[in-house]
């Protein structure tokens, strides 16, 4: 198997696609991010890598809160649109027809149409070069009732999608089940 070297690249496959919600000067704004990950389980925390010049980061500096909204595949156009225009110049809520609501945090706007919404308070900010790594503590989780099975969130009902780079950057759906986690590997042992 031959390998090709590309130098340092942030190539993690796949990346989630989420809409980060913030307030800046009292106005809500949403922008898509793929560079995010869970950073701890107890307490639950999450990170998002955001370029310093982004309008989203201004809102985070102002209020120290933000939201992470997981869109379903039906919302792909809206999600992509939010990444092509700046909240400084556009009212993305109006353009996309988002229904905005709030939970515990007054400055973490949530999108009702997104099946999963996380409210986050900033714990750490780390300057990593052209990006600021924002680490937030998740203070509340909202899931659309239709997306639950036996009271638990169901990925096939949430229908999130993934972002990847490559010959052309694109969005992929989440596909079929390959196996049960912590079961499929259980009896596996190559001699």
């Amino acid at each position, binding site marked *: 198997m031959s390998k090709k070297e590309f130098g340092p690249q942030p190539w993690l496959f796949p990346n989630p696609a989420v809409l980060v919600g913030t307030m800046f000067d009292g106005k809500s704004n949403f922008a898509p991010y793929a560079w995010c990950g869970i950073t701890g389980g107890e307490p639950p925390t999450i990170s998002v890598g955001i370029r310093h010049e982004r309008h989203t980061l201004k809102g985070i500096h102002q209020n120290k809160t933000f939201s992470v909204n997981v869109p379903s595949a039906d919302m792909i156009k809206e999600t992509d649109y939010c990444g092509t225009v700046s909240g400084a110049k556009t009212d993305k809520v109006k353009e996309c027809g988002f229904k905005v609501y709030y939970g515990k945090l007054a400055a973490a706007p949530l999108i009702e149409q997104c099946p999963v919404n996380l409210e986050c308070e900033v714990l750490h900010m780390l300057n990593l070069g052209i990006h600021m790594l924002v680490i937030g503590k998740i203070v*509340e989780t909202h899931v659309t009732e239709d997306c639950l099975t036996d009271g638990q969130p169901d*990925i096939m009902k949430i229908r999130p999608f993934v972002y990847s780079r490559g010959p052309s950057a694109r969005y992929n759906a989440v596909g079929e089940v390959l196996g049960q986690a912590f079961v499929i590997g259980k009896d596996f042992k190559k001699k």
Partner: protein
Amino acid sequence: MTKKKLGPQPLLWPHPTTIVGSHVDGKPDFAAVAWTGVAASSPPAITIALQHHRYSLKGIYQNKTFSINIPSRDLVKEADYCGLVSGAKTDKVKDCGFKVFYGTLATAPLIEECPVNLELEVAHIINMGSHALVIGRVVETHVSEDCLTDGQPDINKVRPFIFTPGKYHAVGEAFADTFKIGKEIKGKG
């Protein structure tokens, strides 16, 4: 649309499935990690969250280097196995039949069978409570030649998969181009 509140949950879906490599006491070890994300692009940095007792974390503290290997769906059993057993008790390289190679870093073991391999140096470690958040700088990226299209990695050839509590899912078909499909929205409101 009614919503149910579940309290604070680490519910960021979907999670990638990765196999993190490190050297513990001079021996390569691999562990399955889903709590990972890109942190920055220039210089490229990636986060992984590991519980403090994890064997692979010991190796990361010892050498300040690690690897992230992206398995294709053909390696779902091997990846799951690497999340089930501890390197303290098992030789996962032998059990899984991994061909291990090295690039720039002498203590960041890479799995040849995985289509994408990243070599990382530790930049920061933050104690997040139950987990240590390791932020690594990517120093080299290796991609299997047969997973490239026009010289770039192609997700449909890499065939990575997704972890959820309970199930692994394939990455499905590509259904839209980024920064193109959204242009249809303009002026809708």
